[in-house]
């Protein structure tokens, strides 16, 4: 059963929901086919550690619960740990069977997070270094 109590709980009461005004990096992704949208905001310190994270967005229960659960696991993590996150990690985190057509809902948050980090590494961090 896809709509287990914890999924619905995260959907109705998303953790770390909101924006960070002075975020080190933020990034928005959407899934036009579904209308799911997610933005992630990060504060990243000089040791490449996530000090704070928030997300906002709207869409189906799977996409939003996945973002909420993922946000909980990111605080205190180093960037390379995040880079190594895989599709399987997300599916394990959700703990429910995800059909192929819903996979992009489940993985939208991971894509958004990974692309946020990419943007940070390519454009934000290097800007300071140079």
């Amino acid at each position: 059963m896809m709509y287990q109590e914890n999924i619905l709980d995260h959907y109705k009461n998303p953790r770390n929901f909101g924006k960070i005004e002075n975020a080190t990096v933020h990034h928005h992704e959407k899934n036009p086919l579904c209308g799911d949208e997610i933005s992630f905001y990060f504060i990243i310190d000089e040791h490449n550690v996530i000090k704070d994270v928030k997300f906002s967005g709207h869409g189906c229960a799977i996409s939003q619960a996945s973002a909420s659960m993922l946000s909980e696991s990111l605080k205190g993590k180093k960037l390379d740990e995040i880079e190594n996150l895989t599709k399987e990690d997300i599916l394990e985190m959700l703990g429910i069977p995800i059909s192929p057509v819903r996979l992009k809902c489940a993985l939208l948050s991971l894509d958004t997070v990974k692309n946020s980090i990419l943007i940070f590494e390519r454009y934000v961090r290097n800007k300071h270094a140079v």
Partner: protein
Amino acid sequence: MLKAQMKSLDAEKIRKDFPILSRKVHGKKLVYFDNAATSQKPRQVIDAITHYYENYNANVHRSIHQLGEEATAAYENARGKVGDFISANSIQEIIFTKNSTEALNLLAYSLTADLKKEDEIVISQLEHHSNFVPWQQMAKIFGLRLKFIEVNKDGSLNEESIKEQITKNTKIVSVSHISNAIGSLNPVEDITKIAHENGASMIIDGSQSVPHMKVDVQKISSDFYVFTGHKMLGPTGVGVLHGKKEMLEKMRPFLYGGEMINEVGFEETTFNKLPYKFEAGTPNIIEAIGLGVAVDYLNQIGIKNIYEHDMELTDYALERMKELDFVEVYGPKERGPLVSFNVKKVHAHDVSQILDSEGIAIRAGHHCAMPLMKVMGLQATARASFYLYNTNEEVDHFILALKKVKKVFGV
């Protein structure tokens, strides 16, 4: 028994012709309410396909042998059936395409090539992407003006806007007969009249209408009318373009190649007569034959009976959905046999997923009508669409499943 006689058709009897309807989904009886996406196929159509491959598979119009003659006769016979079904003037007006999308692209490519800069094309805000993107892109390539008939809040076309947008500069008007996204039944005869008064050609996308209601292209007087086979019990891979003969004759071909030619020289080529001028290459022979058998099936039940049945079901579903205060229904009163809706505070995909767990197939998303969704301020909707084999009991099951959505999400 008395109750069955009062019905416009015997759905229970019809269901026996559709093998797929006896299968189970997640251990539940399949309720197929995704007919606007594609219909199921009766045994007669499935058998006709096998029969063709086992007995007279051959290419058409070129093979001088018995199989070729039989295949050609069956293919052309199907063209005749399809023509009669929409009251076409002659079989020369019936062109087989891959689907409605290809028919609309054929028109977009062929008709816009001869337009001048600043000429206008008018479509509506509620069109499917297939009747939207081709015109938008042609307008960009040739510097044409693309204008939109606006929709009212309920999703019907705004009458004032129809008159405002279609002007003496308008060369092409292209509007759907029934909206696939929210079901609006559009006043295509009136729009055709206004288009013709302004000297514009009228195209109608009948993908959602031809499966369910009597369409008479002579009465509507459209210049072009397109639809697709797989939504009306036929196989995928065959669509139909109906065009007035005098219009088709002066148009450029869309696809070039074999069969569409008369004589080919190193410098020049002359083209085949209608309808072959628009059917390049080996056509979708079996798909067309299958569509012909589907038309036989629809005729045997009677398209008027099918219309009454589908609308009775739609009215019943709308009536029952009124009981559910957590459900929001979209679309105007004048509609085709589909209901677009949302469960408040629940995404349409989640609704669809929970219904699926109850064996009910519906569609959820933007229905290939993103501009309309934007105008109506929606992200997505769920859509239940009905056909001749659906029953009131299935609607009751659907209502129960919607109550389950409410329970799961606690809305």
